[in-house]
């Protein structure tokens, strides 16, 4: 394989470039005043809850450094929880605790944290170490999702999540991110997680990548990661379409996890979703965006938009071939 693609080859494949995403999707469709709704995970969770959309439960918010030492009280009786910077980006600063060993907490990567260390992590979060502009932040304590064992064969620890790109309210591309040993159980592509593209119309995974390389099996479990049927797919597509109505962003990344008891939950929303999803799907975004622009779909109610997407965004559609 060649080291470089020629620009005309990428254009032919309909690859959306970072510059074009910024100029023509984010700057044009995402109004700046809607950003706090998604950038602040606490606010986002409350906005979605207000519309009766399923989200992981909130344990509490630590907003002052002085409270960090007393956080344990909020965690009484819990040995599974997640600490997130409310304004974090790219998964930085997220700490997933899955169990307890005596008085220490066990993180997904196997490291044990004592209360002092957790408190220090919380003050780091609060002082803005992981926040978007180094602004002072809040630490959000969230219930750990009891994730659906359906992914057990193709995920190494951690919580796999499903990313759906919603363009003008229409779900246009999706992938599932599968944690690996290299990603320390985090579903983060640039930390080494597997990204598997999902067909919007069928909910079957089509292709997968690690980093920028295509794979067919999970790097740790060796199970096939293609042709895997994502459960409750119709509901997931509709939830993604609904999120657009909740926050009003025209170019939106919706992250969904599958809870074994509650079904699909909206983990977080992203106003600047990345472009690796194109590699995971082996397809460019531009033809799909053009298809949405040319249709009347953005004017429909959420459920009909989801239906339109499942009917039209398929490899059988000649416009996307």
């Amino acid at each position, binding site marked *: 394989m060649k080291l470089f*693609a020629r*620009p005309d080859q*990428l254009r*032919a*494949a309909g690859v959306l470039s970072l510059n074009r995403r910024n100029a023509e999707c984010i700057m044009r469709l995402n109004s700046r005043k809607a950003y706090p709704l998604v950038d602040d995970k606490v606010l986002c969770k409350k906005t979605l809850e207000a519309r009766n959309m399923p989200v992981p439960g909130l344990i509490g918010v630590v907003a002052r450094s002085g409270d960090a030492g007393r956080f344990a009280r909020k965690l009484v009786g819990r040995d599974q929880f997640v600490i997130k910077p409310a304004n974090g980006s790219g998964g930085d600063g997220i700490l997933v605790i899955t169990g307890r060993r005596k008085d220490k907490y066990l993180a997904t990567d196997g490291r044990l944290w004592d209360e002092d260390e957790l408190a220090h992590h919380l*003050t780091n979060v609060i*002082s803005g170490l992981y926040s978007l502009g180094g602004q002072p932040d809040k630490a959000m304590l969230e219930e750990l999702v009891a994730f659906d064992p359906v992914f057990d064969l193709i995920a190494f620890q951690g919580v796999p999540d499903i990313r759906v790109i919603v363009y003008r309210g229409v779900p246009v591309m999706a992938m599932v991110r599968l944690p690996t040993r290299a990603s320390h159980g985090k579903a983060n592509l640039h930390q080494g997680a597997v990204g598997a593209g999902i067909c919007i119309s069928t909910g079957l995974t089509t292709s997968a990548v690690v980093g920028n390389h295509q794979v067919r099996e999970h790097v740790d479990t060796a199970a096939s990661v293609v042709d895997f049927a994502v459960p409750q797919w119709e509901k997931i597509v509709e939830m993604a379409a609904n999120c657009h109505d909740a926050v009003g962003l025209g170019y939106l990344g919706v992250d969904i996890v599958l809870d074994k008891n509650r079904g699909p939950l909206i983990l977080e929303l992203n106003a600047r979703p990345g472009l690796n999803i194109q590699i995971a799907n082996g397809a460019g975004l531009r033809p799909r965006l*053009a298809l949405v*622009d040319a249709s009347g779909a953005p004017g429909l109610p959420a459920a009909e938009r989801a239906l339109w997407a499942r009917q039209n965004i398929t490899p059988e559609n000649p416009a996307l071939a």
Partner: protein
Amino acid sequence: MIMKRSTHGLTLALFLVLAGLAIFAWKVRAFGFPVFPDETSVVWTVQAQISVDPGPGAMKVAMQLPTRTPGYALSDEHFISRGFGTAVDDDRWQRELTWSVRRAAKEQTLYYRGVFFENDQDVELAPRPKFPKPPELDEPYQTALGEIVEEVRDESADVVSFAAQVLVKLNAPAPEDNMALFLQGPLGLDKAHIAQMIMSAARIPVVMLNGVRLVEQARAAPLETWIAVHNGTGWTVFDPNSGNQGLPSDFLLWWVGDAPMVEPTGARLDDLRISIRRQSVSALNLATERARQAGSGVDEFSLLALPLDLQSVYEVLLLVPLGAFIIAFLRNVIGLRSFGTFMPVLIALAFRETQLVAGLVLFTVIVSVGLLIRFYLEKLRLLLVPRLSAVLIIVVLLMAAVSVLSQRLGVDAGLSVALFPMVIIAMVIERMSIVWEEHGPGNAILDGIGSLAIAAFAYLVMGIDLFAWWALVFPELMLVLLGLTIALGRYTGYRVTELIRFRELAK
């Protein structure tokens, strides 16, 4: 595809680029502002040395000054004399200098010195003249004159061709009898005055153009006289001794008319000597002088009008836009990553003092040691701002230590470390340690090398002397840079790194 692309930004960018280039071109073409540093221009210093023998009483010496000088402009002039008062009669067409003194002993030497430079300007030579009276001469001159005029009139169509024909006859190898009468006769006129007389007989106004040739060097440059004839709308210049039309480009017109160049009253002119020397001067000074004379305001509203110490500040400051443009290009077109958006520009500015290799070494040393200490601080679990402050203090201490050490070792390069932007370095260390922990040492080191590579590239580009020169002399080129940056902001194509990143999608 997605939207009808707005052309607003690109129009603005185009406007800025064109405006910047237009001002640039105007300054270069109209005033000769030098595009390259160390360019020189040529000026001529013309000196008239006048020796006079004073009489017993008060004396005055009047001298015609260069006033209307087609092809040249005066940049500076001096009148040098001992004990004389000077007054300049400033006429629109002809200036006249008068030296005067009540009593003078022995012989006196007066100097006029003027500095001239080439300057293409359209100058009216003299006021619109009146029709001259036909001369009244004794016979046989009057008859001869009449015959010449008749003859030339038959052979010419208008004023200019009349004058040309007179000069042809005047300069014929074997002049006709009538003409020979004037040329060899006892009237003692030179060709210029014979031509003037003939044309006066035809009622054509003629003036004398007196001047010198601006040669490389001359100790006693001869005065030459050219004639200009007026045809009712404009002047046409002829060489009376060859009939050639048009002033030669090296002719400095000194004065117009029949008056002598120097006219003493109460004294006797002993000697008049004109010397000429060609010199090279800074093209920039000359261009500034031209701009001043043209009243363009370019000289007044220029960075070069600032005090020198401020100029050297701006020489550096004006490189920042160039660095910012390079960053925008490397990030949005090439797709490189760096710690902090403009950190590489500030590092590059510091490199100007340390030089590149020493700068890279010093930067790496300070960041590496700072990083080690930062990892130790991590164990202390300090709050963010005190931790940043601690890193900043450590960076300053490290810089001081490097300076002192290099002084002891006699390594000059180490001293200039003091110019590194310490806050920026502290932030780099902090960001790098975060990336180190979150994304692994590989990513942190790669980003660090990326930042240094961008800084080194920016340093190399900003180090090109030509750009520093342009920034100072042609600050309007910043508009071009701004336009290009705005155009870059509208670039929605692939970054070079995306050609690698998405290569598996290539069809």
